[in-house]
């Protein structure tokens, strides 16, 4: 694939954190190359602490890389902007805003207040939180907060969606419903999605391509296309031999890294 | 011998030259350290000294007459006037109400409708000014606007045009005069020819307990007064006042210990008659609620220059 055609191009990306207590540098990402095409749905798998969130932060423009280049639409990644939406692993809801106001926060453009409200309410309904519009985040359960965060990011309708385990706090069934919702939005609005997940199953259901990262400092260990036709049916995939094979393969790859990380300790 | 008693004595600025000399030149004093010791404590003013006396933190102090009278009236402390310190009278400086030569104010009556500066509402000079204004047909509350302006700012406020007239005490009067363009409007002369400004007061308890100490103190007090009044010491005394007040020496030199300074009675004796007149004036003005008797407030039994 030609680098120029890719929506996101990452070359030789490295990120070190300064550890103020010991004075040493902690390498989080160590020389990572990655391309994501426009409208592609890429899932990112990797052992805990391997640098997945850090990668998203760099792509989002929140932290700067120690080395390497990151291009978005062919241009070096700039400061955070509304073209890249992010769902943080730890939600980051505004505690002083109600659910409705949190979701409305990111909606802009020419929309009238009434339209913005309607749009926010529709999204709240999509994450099954109708009735909680007036609640403040601290009165919500973990999963509910996560769903508000999802709705908020979708509301402002970014071109690229960076999602950091957005369904991690949801029960499997709600998660399935959310996955379906996300896929619908992805197809309709033709977004580019980079999606961090811990679940091999989820990756197989959602992704065009699954990227597996090595243990810290994170690099790309494997980059595997998911050759399954869409729409994908959860129940069918349970028995689909390609899917079973893929899951086993991904499982093995991550396991290898987890074991390696453990050994390195 | 036992340690001599300590007199805890309050002082303030300005116009307590006797005290400043005693503090800074104990060498000239005969009894200091022998018959008594002094603990000199500075206070922002007479009221604070009286509060300190009432709370038993002081035995004596240089106090002005209004708070002293109010204290005695309210029986807050049993204070006795033991010596004169400073007064305003002919032959010495009197707090002066001035205006700019260019202000167009010629008489007191011209002040009608104008703004004038008061250094401290409720102070002795404020009461005097009110009486004088009234005497000249001006209601101090209605016919003029009177704003409070601290002494050091008075001249500037006048020159800037914020007020057309204001009162000046020393050294501010001397200073303004030196810079020129100032005209005298009136002094307290008209209502009180002699105003005992500051007196030395002791608590009756302390006098009863340590008469010898008080006697010795007063002897030294007179010594300091004589020293200050001696023309050959003038330079040194100006230096002492400059050091104590932190004011520039050259400013003080223009008036200190000249007829432009407050009047220090050579015998340091309290002027009972003048005090009585002042008390009467205060009673008339409503500041005092009762008629006080000056004689009973004064106790010169330990004064070295009292005629016995």
């Amino acid at each position, binding site marked *: 694939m030609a680098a120029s055609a890719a929506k996101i191009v990452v070359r030789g990306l490295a990120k070190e954190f300064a550890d103020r207590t010991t004075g040493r540098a902690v390498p989080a990402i160590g020389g990572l190359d990655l391309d994501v095409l426009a409208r592609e749905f890429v899932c990112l798998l990797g052992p805990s602490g391997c640098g997945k969130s850090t990668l998203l932060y760099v792509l989002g423009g929140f932290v700067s890389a120690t080395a390497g280049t990151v291009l978005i639409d062919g241009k070096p990644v700039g400061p955070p902007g509304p073209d890249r939406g992010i769902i943080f692993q730890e939600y980051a809801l505004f505690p002083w805003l109600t659910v409705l106001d949190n979701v409305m926060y990111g909606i802009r453009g020419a929309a009238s207040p009434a339209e913005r409200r309607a749009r926010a309410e529709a999204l709240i309904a999509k994450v099954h939180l109708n009735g909680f519009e007036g609640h403040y985040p601290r009165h919500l359960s973990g999963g509910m907060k996560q769903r508000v965060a999802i709705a908020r990011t979708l509301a402002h309708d970014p071109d690229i969606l960076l999602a950091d385990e957005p369904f991690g706090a949801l029960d499997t069934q709600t998660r399935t419903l959310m996955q379906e919702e996300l896929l619908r939005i992805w197809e309709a609005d033709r977004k580019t999605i980079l999606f961090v997940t811990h679940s091999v199953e989820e990756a197989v259901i959602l992704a065009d391509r699954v990227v597996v990262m090595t243990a810290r400092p994170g690099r790309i260990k494997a980059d595997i296309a998911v050759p399954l036709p869409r729409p994908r049916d959860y129940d069918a995939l349970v028995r689909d031999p390609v899917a079973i094979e893929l899951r086993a393969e991904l499982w093995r790859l991550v396991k290898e890294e987890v074991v390696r990380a453990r050994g390195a300790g | 011998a036992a340690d001599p008693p300590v007199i805890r004595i309050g002082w303030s600025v300005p116009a307590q030259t006797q005290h400043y000399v005693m503090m800074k030149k104990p060498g000239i004093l005969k009894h200091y350290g022998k018959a008594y010791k002094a603990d000199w404590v*500075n206070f922002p003013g007479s009221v604070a000294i009286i509060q300190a006396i009432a709370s038993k933190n002081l035995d004596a102090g240089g106090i002005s007459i209004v708070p002293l009278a109010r204290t005695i009236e309210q029986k807050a402390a049993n204070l006795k006037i033991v010596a004169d310190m400073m007064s305003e009278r002919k032959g010495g400086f009197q707090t002066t109400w001035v205006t700019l030569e260019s202000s167009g104010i010629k008489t007191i009556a011209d002040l009608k409708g104008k703004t004038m500066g008061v250094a401290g509402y409720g102070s002795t000079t404020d009461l005097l000014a009110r009486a004088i204004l009234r005497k000249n047909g001006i209601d101090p509350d209605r016919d003029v606007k009177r704003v409070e302006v601290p002494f050091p700012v008075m001249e*500037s406020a006048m020159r800037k045009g914020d007020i057309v007239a204001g009162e000046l005490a020393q050294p501010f009067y001397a200073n303004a005069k030196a810079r020129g363009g100032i005209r005298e409007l009136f002094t307290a002369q008209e209502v009180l020819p002699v105003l005992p400004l500051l007196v030395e007061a002791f608590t009756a308890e302390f006098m009863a307990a340590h008469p010898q100490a008080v006697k010795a103190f007063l002897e030294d007090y007179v010594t300091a007064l004589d020293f200050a009044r001696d023309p050959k010491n003038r330079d040194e005394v100006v230096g002492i006042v400059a050091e104590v*007040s*932190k004011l520039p020496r050259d400013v003080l030199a223009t008036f200190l210990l000249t007829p432009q300074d407050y009047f220090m009675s050579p015998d340091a004796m309290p002027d009972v008659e003048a005090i009585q007149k002042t008390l009467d004036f205060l009673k008339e003005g409503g500041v005092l609620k009762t008629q006080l008797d000056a004689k009973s407030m004064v106790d010169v039994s330990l004064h070295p220059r009292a005629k016995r």
Partner: protein
Amino acid sequence: MNGAEEAAGKRRAARIGGATIVIAVLALWEGVSAGGFVDEQVLPRVTVVAAAWWELLLSGELPAQVASSLGRQAAGFSIAVVVGVVLGIAMARYRAIDDFAGPLITMILPIPKAALIPLVMLWFGIGDVAKTIVVFLGTILPVVVSAYHAAGSVDQVFLWSARSMGDNEAQLLRRVVLRAALPEIMSGIRMGLIISLIVLVGAEMLAGRGGIGWLVFYTLDTGAYRVTYAAMLTIAAIGFAYDRLFLAISRRLLHWVEQE
């Protein structure tokens, strides 16, 4: 340009900016006074003030006054920090203490200290104890209010965690509430530190036995304004030094706090 260089550049620019402001203010001051916009008697020129300062320094008066003040200030401030933090946390945690102390604090602390002087004299005399108490009364307000609000908004899960790991009340207060509230308490202490210097003037008005605050008030009264300004600038300089010290300590204590 890398991040460190950029930061250094910004710091340098800031230092230059800060110095420019200081010089501009001093120049403006000199100009306003020398040009006659304000009477020199009320606002002596910078050069005159500087000369007065130098004189006070050489005569040994300034160092002596500063030394006598800093003792009171340090004592009043330290007691205010300890009492303020303890009282603030106690008020946040125990309703009964809040009900008792809360109204008293809000009613007594806003009374001008100058007005309380007679009572302070009555109960504590006119010595260092009395002055230290005035400094204490002035300083405790920001500390106690900050500690109160900070301790009142400690995240519940921290308290719960500590409880379920067997902390008793004392451990909980020391190991969790105090630590979690520390960032906000430190901001109260910072204000208290500054205010403790300001209230020196009020405290030393009580009865003069010297002190830098006494010098301010005393010369304000006599009209020796060049000394007033010299003393005020000295206090400001001490405040500046204290604030630097505070920042250094606070940075150490709060290194765990997240900052972007």
